[in-house]
Structure formats: C-alpha cells, structure tokens
C-alpha cells in the first residue's frame, strides 16, 4: 500500500471506527478503499490489528484517539 501513500509507511488519519479510518484514508490516498473494503465489509483476506491486537475483522470496530492500526494479510492455521 506504500505506493498509494507515496512511500509513507505510517500515516495519521482521524476516525472513530475502522470504517471511518478507511474512508479518511481514501480521501487522502485514493484507491485505498478498494484494497481494504468490499461493499460495507472488510475485504476478505485483510486483517486489522488495533494496538497490536488482532480484531474481529469488522469495519465496525471502534478506534481510540491514539490507536495504532495495521492492515495485514489474514492468517489461518492448523493444530492437531
């Protein structure tokens, strides 16, 4: 996604939910929304971390003022 942000690894945008954060990212860096959202949901295969914790994978997730958000590929796994 860095090519969309002009090389910036970390950007600061306002928003009280993941949805608002994505919308605000889109305003600043057009194309961002297409990568992160599909309709009114998070795009399949994208995981959201808020302050280091993996969230429930919803754009409805609430975000604190100083929260650090990461969009990463979703993971899966297998035990016995």
């Amino acid at each position: 996604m860095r090519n969309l942000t002009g090389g910036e690894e970390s950007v600061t945008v306002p928003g009280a939910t993941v949805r608002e954060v994505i919308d605000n990212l889109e305003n600043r860096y057009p194309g961002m929304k297409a990568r992160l959202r599909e309709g009114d949901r998070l795009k399949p295969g994208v995981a959201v971390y808020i302050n280091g914790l993996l969230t429930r994978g919803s754009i409805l997730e609430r975000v604190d003022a100083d929260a650090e958000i990461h969009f990463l590929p979703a993971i899966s796994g297998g035990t016995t």
Partner: protein
Amino acid sequence: MTENKEYKVVGTRPIRHDGVDKVTGRALYGADFQIAGLLHGRVLRSPHAHARILSIDTSRAEALPGVKGVVTAADLPTAEDRIADLGEGAVNLKYLCDNIFASDKALYKGHAVAAVAATNPHIAEEACTLIDVEYEVLPPVLEVRQAMEPDAPLLHENIKTTSMGETAEEPSNVASHIQHKLGDPEKGFAEADIVIERDFVTGTVHQGYIEPHNATAHFNQDGQLTIWCSTQGAFTVREQVAEILQHPISKIKVVPMEIGGGFGGKISVYIKPVAALLAKKTGKPVKVLMSRTDVFEGTGPTPASYIRVKMGATKAGKITAAEAYLAFEAGAYPGSPVGPGAMCIFAPYNIENVIIDGYDVVVNKPKTAPYRAPGAPNAAFGSETVLDEIAEELGIDPLEIRLINAAKEGDRRADGPIHPRIGFIETVEAAKSHPHYTAPNGKKHHGRGIASGYWFNIGLESSVTINVNADGTINLIEGSTDIGGTRSSIAMQAAEVLDIPAESVNPSVVDTNSVGYTAVTGGSRTTYATGYAAYEAAQDVKRKMIERAAKLWEVDESNVQFADGVFSSINGKEEQISFRDLCGRLGETGGPVVGSGTVNPGGAGGAYATHIVDVVVDEETGKVEVLRYTAVQDAGKAIHPSYVEGQIQGGAVQGIGWALNEEYIYNDEGEMTNASFLDYRMPTCLDLPMIDAVIVEVPNPGHPYGVRGVGEVPIVPPMAAIANAIYDAIGIRMTELPMSPNRLLKAMGKI
C-alpha cells in the same frame, strides 16, 4: 485477572471425557458411520500433473452392474470468480470448485476428475477405471523458482500478480507479492560488523494425519442435505459446501464425527461436496473415503519454498538489520501461507531495520493447505540458522544472542503491530537453565543445536451452551471438533467457574444445527476461544443461579455471593446452599437453567518456543539420529498440562520428521513417487527419544485464565535446531530440507 494464581481445576490432569470411548474402539470416526442403504463412492483422479481435459465419457462406468451414479465437474453449479470469506481465510470460489473437480484443466497428479457411487467400494473403484478421459498433456511446472521465470508455462491465464490490491498487467504464476518494511535496512546493514546471507530450500510436506478424509452425505427429497464427516470445523464445511453447491446453509446440516488428526489439513473440503453430489444424483446416502495415496496426491500439503535470509549484527551480537525473501509454492491455486511466514520470520527479535518480501506462486502440485503454524517453520529454518551462524562467528552462546535481541512487550514486529505481553525471554531463560543445555556435549560426531520460533495464534468465533442438571452436573454443548483433548480443556474452564470437578461436566461436540457458530479447530484457538466461550457460558450460569438463590431466600441478587461451590446470602440472612443442592431446586425457582457464551476474542496471545536437540551423525551413511530433545514453550496457562505437553511433543516430532526425511518426491512428469506411508517417511517410535516438554507460563492478558494457544508453535523450531546440531556435529551447514542421508552424504562430499 491474569496473575498466575492457584486454581482448583485449571492446571490439573483429569482423565479426558472421551477417553473410554477412544480406548475401547467405541468412538465413531467419519469412516465408521453406517446407515441403511449406503452406497460407496470413489474418486477418479488425473494421472497427469498438467493437462487440458478434452473430454470425459462416463458411459462405460455407468453401465457396470452395481454403479448407481457418476458425477464430474459438469454436475457442479458454475462458479463465480469471486472471493468468499469462509471462516478462516479468503477463498476464490472458482478455484475452490475447480479443486473439487477439474473442469477445463487438471493441475496436479491426483486432481479429482470424476466420482462414482456403487453398491460396494470395489465396484466403485473398478468403475473409475472405466471412465474415459481424454487429456492433452502439458508441461508441468514443479518448482517455485522455475514457476517464477518469465517464460515458465502458465497454470492459469487469468492470474496476474497482485500486491495488496494492485494488479500487474501480464499473466504470471506469481499470484501475489507482499512486503513488510521497518526502519532503514540499508543503514542497518551498514552499521553491522558482520553480515551473513544464505539461501534455503524446503520440500513439500504433508500433515500426515492417520485418518484419511471421509464423508457420508444424504440428500432428502426436500433438499435437506446432511453430511457426516471428520473435519476441523463443521461450520466451515457447511459454508464451503453451500458455496460450492450453491445450496442454502439452512438446508445443510454437518455432523462432525470424531476426527483422526488434522493439523490444518482438514479445513479445506475435498470429497464432502462430492459425496453430496453423488447423494443427490442417486437419492441414497453415499460414503466417500480417500485412500492413503488419495490423501497424499489429492489433499493439501504445506508448501515447498525458497528462502533467502540476510542478517547483520554488531560485534556485541545486536542485530542491526534483517532481510528476507520468501517464495512459497501455493500448489495449483493461489493461497500459500507465505503471508504468515513473512510475518513470523523475525518475530522473536526486536530488530529496528527489516525488509521482508513474500511471493505466492502457483505450481503443478496439490493446492496447499494449512499445516501447524503454516509458513512459520519454513521461515524459521532460514532465520534461525543464519542467527546461529552469526552467534558462532561472533563467539556468542546461541541462547545468549537470542536474549540480546529478544522481543518483549512494547517492541514492534517487522510487520507493524506492537507486541503485547509475550513470553519469549522466559522460554530462552528456561532453556538456558535446563539440565539438557548444561549437560556435556563433546563426543565425536555428536552435536547440539537450539532454535526458537513464533506463532501468532488466532481467536475467532466460538459458542458454548451449558445445560444445568438436577444432580449438580452440567452438560456442555460446543461446536469445536476435539482433536487432542479439547473437550476436557474446555470443560475444565467451565468447571473452574462453577467450582465443580472436571468430571461433573459432560461435554458434547454437536452438529451445526445444535450449537452457535463456531470456527475451526485450528490456529491454536480451541482451548483459548472455545474455552473462553465456556468460561462466559459458565459465568452466565452462575449469574442465573445467583438469581435462583435470591429467589429462594427472597433477598436481592446483590446479596448473594458464590464462593467455594456454595451460594450464600450476605448482609443479613444466614442462608447457604451448595451449587449441587441448588441444581436440585431449579424447577421450583423458575425452571431449567441454560447458560450461553459467545466470543470472538481479539487477544489470542502469541506463542514462543525454544528447542534444544542433540544428534549424532553417521559420517559414513549420512544418517542423523536424534538422541535427546527438549522443547520449552510459553503456554500462557496450561489448562490440562498433559495435553499441552502432548501438543508440544507431537509438534516437535512432526518437525523432526520434516527436518530429516519427510518430503514429496517428484519425477520429471510431476508424479509423486512416494505417496505411501512406506516411502513418505514419518517418524516411528523407534526413531525418537523421549521428548522433554517444558511448560513456561506467562499469562495471556487476553484470556480470563491466561491461556495462549499451544498447538502450532512447537513445529516451528525443530528444523533449524536440528540443522544447527548437525553443524555442531560435523561442521557443515545444511540449507536444504529434508536433511536426508543422501543430502548429508553430498554435503560431506562423500558422493
């Protein structure tokens, strides 16, 4: 709530609830299911690794007496090229369907082409040989670097490399590229006193569960479909089958039978939709079983990979920069675990400057599936041997260099997120003081190696219902397939809340019509998330029981407390009633009590492991013998320590197999030549010593008892630990997996 306090049930070792059924042969696994009128299904598979399917003629098969129905890709609804999120990981439906039955192209040897239902399995098998398929054989692409060449034959005309949403112009076998960058790697390497860069190659390996895939399906006239099967997740079977057959989930009931191992390999569906199609066509229940060869050739292994790791450090052992290039074989369709591999590779360490590139590449091999910490073992084989080499060059103890660089709470992972409370340092400290590490190690051709590993663990959805019985016991209803004793580790968490013995809980794993949505038993999540749901359901029961006691005593609920298994009134009345006695009075106080808990927790704490291994190398034959093995792991809180140890031991041994002998061996035509337990060499008990499992407990703040998932991380360190031990024994760095006798002989220059 996360201090390491004493519990009454948590941390004890009761007999598992399903134990008697499993030691008497009474437990019913998928293949054990019987029903009147049952037909038997078998699957015809492509003999070619890459071929266009020109025609399929099933008429001779259909004419065989005893054959009741034949199905092919033509019987599947036309799939959209659309991404669906099926519980654990996103799936392109077109690929999902094409992997059930090859439509236009067979993309690996073993790719299903057609299936037959007949009155007995031998007839079904014979009928498969009577299906005439005309193929145009194409050149196979069998290795990741070959597949990435610009002139490589293409598996899919429509795949173009994507990079977090951006798509390239030209078609390619490279389905996607990911990159993580932190700090300034160039500057970091410039600051290093020592820089080491090495290439690594790992082979394709299989989960190797002992129970082959199985499914029995029945289609009622009203469209109600029932599937009895072994699976890691009944709900994900329901979702996948619904999408593949375009059948509403409300019309599908999946009944999870006991499961004979999964390790990630029983999440994807293969023959479940096939059984359903055959059942629909014949109007009879149909049981489809895979043979062992079908399992090797037709289900997802974990990928072969090419990995390049470069690390720089100061003389004092501080890592200044790290770089990794990971190319993973996805198999026939996109979706290798290169993502988690890239995120885990340097996760044990706090490194300021990192760059990681990952590539997901299609090849003519079975579509890969998760296998225990998918991606992380491949990655750790590279990073943990390079770090060992740095330590050796600098003359620093290999555990010490890990302590110097160890990640801790508040440090940033290379892929971005900040670590919450983690227990990596604790595992290294425990390894350092373990008698194994301090034991003498100087004999000729003997060597000792250590390595560490990381796995995220996941949360996801779980639901639990608790029904309270009049005798003070509870029935616990859950949707998590029990693969390794989780009925007990979940039941124990409910028992702890209600202060009843583990034996007073009757856990049942039920079908998709009978419990709330529950994600797969995978990602080391079951004891964590379904246990969490059980904790919540038990809390719900406790609240309701407090209401009943209040009603009984005609006091306000706020005046009832529950401690040591007894409800008592405070502030006035001197009333007491035990949990058990109150259970006997539910009818008169308002009727049955049912508690429920549903969760989708985000706080699955990551798990770390540090392993120590001693080996001896036979210099004349190249054979490596594992003499002693110690696996240290942070479990957060071990609910049932015996089964935590079991996960650690089992994972370590799968890693030993991966390290030494396990691999898919292919000929030039792309045929796997060792698709049996005879020649795919998993460890037998004669190949192993006892495995000393050491549990470290650094409670996870994201769980009421501090649980961290334990199932996956133990497979991460073994390959590198053994490679480091082999180096210690004979002075040669092995960079290719498996480190089989033939490869060792070559590396030693003996052949």
